[in-house]
């Protein structure tokens, strides 16, 4: 982060960046963990280690989550841009 000569503008930008990073972290830790854990790990298990089936399931779940997240974000920004243009 470059706190150059721009002063307040950079401060606002860095606040926005921080909030975006917080959102992203919250998404990863809370949402993905909750939804993919619920879908992929059966409630009764004997071993603490992940087995292959669960690993593959979690890989796919996270990949799909990120992809859908990206697509939804793009659609929303496109809609917001259209709304702005009008």
């Amino acid at each position, binding site marked *: 982060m470059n706190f150059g000569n721009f002063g307040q503008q950079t401060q606002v930008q860095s606040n926005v960046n921080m909030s975006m990073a917080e959102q992203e972290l919250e998404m990863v830790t809370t949402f993905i963990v909750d939804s993919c854990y619920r879908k992929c790990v059966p409630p009764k298990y004997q071993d603490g280690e*992940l*087995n*292959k*089936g669960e*690993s593959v399931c979690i890989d796919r779940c996270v990949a799909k989550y990120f992809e859908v997240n990206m697509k939804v974000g793009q659609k929303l920004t496109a809609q917001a841009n259209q709304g702005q243009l009008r």
Partner: protein
Amino acid sequence: MSLLQSLKSRLPSRNWCIFLGTTSTITGLAIYDKYHLRNVRKELDQKAAILANEPMQTWEVPRKVKVYVAPTHWARYWFKQYIKPVFDSAALDYEVVEPKAAGQIHHTVRDLIWTGKDEQRALPPGHRYEPNPYAALGNPLERPKYSADEGLIAVGPNAWREVLRGLKEGALAERPPPAAVTPVEPTTNADSEKTDAPSDTPNDEATATPEPPLELSEHNLPSFPLPQLGYITGRNQSGWTGFPRRVYGWFTERDTAREIGEEALKVAFGRVREFDVDHDPSLGSKDVYVNKEWSEEQKKSAESVEIPRTVGEKLYIYN
């Protein structure tokens, strides 16, 4: 009243009997088959779960396989119904490569082997292979595109023959240099633009020479291991003529599921045997499908392949 007359008086009318008889037979056959299909699927799932319940560390990546199917809707359905559930239960990662037209798998497989050769040539001269268990954690773009661990599975004899042909040409031949690009003449006159457009396409066709035949030579055999192969039965039942076979197949889905599921399990367990040059290239010959509307090149891609012994020695097939 006699026994027959008393029976007849209790049964519904003749027409109703026929109707109820036919519908209940068909429904009964369907229910019987679907019930046993569910049991067959559960059994295959239990067998495959032996693999899925093994522990896996966080730096490991699941075993991956490339599946080549025919470019038909039926082939996709076949894979999804019979092969995919077994692969999912066995925690085997798969990538389905479906070509847009027949004859393209051959080029894809050939390019894959040539990529492997290119990557090996690009390695520094004193390079020694060091097994690195954390290799999967790096940037996927920096990972080598060819990996001998990814098996090539062909569903159906057409795909199998194309995979074998691509493998043979990839191993025995080198990638030809890219064709020289003919410079396009710039259009200066606005009037000649209209006349140039139709004359451009015959020009391109004239310059696009047919592919020169590849030189197959044992000197080009790669020193890296070739991917393991697998064949899964795939029957072409698409189209109008396939309709009776499809109907029969729907009523006997339990047998198909078991047959294909067992073959998919063999791939999932990963046990290999040496490739038999005499018998293996002709696996599934009775199911080969050639469409009348294909071009000459596509029809040739469905012909049987001969794998020379020098290549066959390096190949392994799942069994």
